[in-house]
């Protein structure tokens, strides 16, 4: 009798395992088009870890929303001159939850120290960090914080 019960339990577990195997990770959202212009006023401006860079972050929509956003970074040095010759990596991060997002951020160099970050997929309400890593003419990092309602 106990063997029968155990078999029933194992069978149910097996059914769930099969069902779980058919689970899906969802479909990636479409990457939004890059807007023709960004707001004049930066969403936030942060200094880099070394202090050598100032990074102005703008977004469309402004302020950023839950879901798809397009970011623009403007890099300047201590004298306010644009910084070229760097590559930029961006990682959106929810520090309180300890996770990032499912969509890798594509970064396009527009020249003149301007970079487009698309998409910034901030899919959950709360505090997000926009973690930035710079390599090339200068190796540095910076972190901007945005709040998504």
């Amino acid at each position, binding site marked *: 009798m106990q063997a029968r019960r155990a078999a029933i339990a194992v069978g149910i577990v097996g059914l769930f395992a099969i069902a779980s195997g058919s689970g899906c990770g969802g479909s*990636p959202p479409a990457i939004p088009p890059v807007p023709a212009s960004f707001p004049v006023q930066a969403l936030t401006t942060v200094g880099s870890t070394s202090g050598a860079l100032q990074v102005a972050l703008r977004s469309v929509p402004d302020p950023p929303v839950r879901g798809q956003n397009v970011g623009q970074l403007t890099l300047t040095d201590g004298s306010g001159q644009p910084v070229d010759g760097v590559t930029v990596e961006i990682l959106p991060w929810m520090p309180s939850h*300890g*996770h990032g997002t499912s969509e890798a951020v594509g970064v396009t160099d527009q020249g003149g120290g301007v970079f487009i970050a698309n998409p910034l997929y901030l899919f959950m309400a709360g505090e997000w960090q926009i973690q930035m890593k710079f390599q090339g003419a200068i190796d540095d990092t910076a972190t901007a914080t945005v709040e998504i309602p």
Partner: protein
Amino acid sequence: MTRLPQRSRSPERLLAAAVIAAAMALAPSAAHAQACCVGTGLVTPARLRMFEDYAVGMQTSVRNVMGSFASSGNYVASPSGNNEVDLEQDLLAATRFGRHVQVALKVPFVETSRNDTGSSAFGGGLGDVAANLRYDITFSGDDPWVPGIAILTGASVPTGRTVEESRDPAGATGLGSYEPNLGVALEQVRGRMFLSLTGFVSKQTARSVGSQEVSFGPRVTGVLAGGYAFANEVTVGAFVTAMRRSDEKLVTAGAAVAVPLGDYWRAQGTLSGDLPFSGWGLNRSTGAGITASLLRVWL
């Protein structure tokens, strides 16, 4: 249907069963929210009564996200057009090893439906499987003054899919690392009324995301529950759950009803909601949901 032995139907046992029903009601509030960020339930609803040897069951829940707490603690309702519904179905199993020890297993299957600016998604899959062990030192109802005291421990295993592994965050079903927990439960009965207080500390183990090593602080959870058991063993109760981890905080309240369906089946329903008062939460989405479960027990 075979009736239970008379000793099992003593008033003390009925009341103990009522307390158990209350404890069963506690699990859903903490469990069914944001699969990417919130650990699997600390208490499995498949808790065995004294005279039960095995149990298997299923539980299903739905939760609607209604707003969120900012990092400042301010509550913000979800913007128009943004909505999220969290669904979960669990397979539950439990068995007993002697009078004092019981272990339980929970296999969750998690889905999320999300609509926000620029995207709409649905995804899901196997969540983080959790195993729990309960060691009853004393039993409620055995002594009018000494409460039932139990040590609780368990862990969730990262069998789910993380946000980073998903094509869309709606497909996230797990934390990405283990989360062991340790707790203590106190239960006492007075007449047909009961009260229980449960405290847990859990800690998610570190995980790697790309080149980043992420560590987590301890999560402290407290649950206060009380209720009333009717003569026919139908039990109604209410509970409040408070969770705190580093810069996260959330308080949830709810009500539950447990209904015996003969000697071998139990049904339970829970209605719960996160309290949307500014200052009562941090960095968490809030919502309300319902849970229904059905258990088959063997004596």
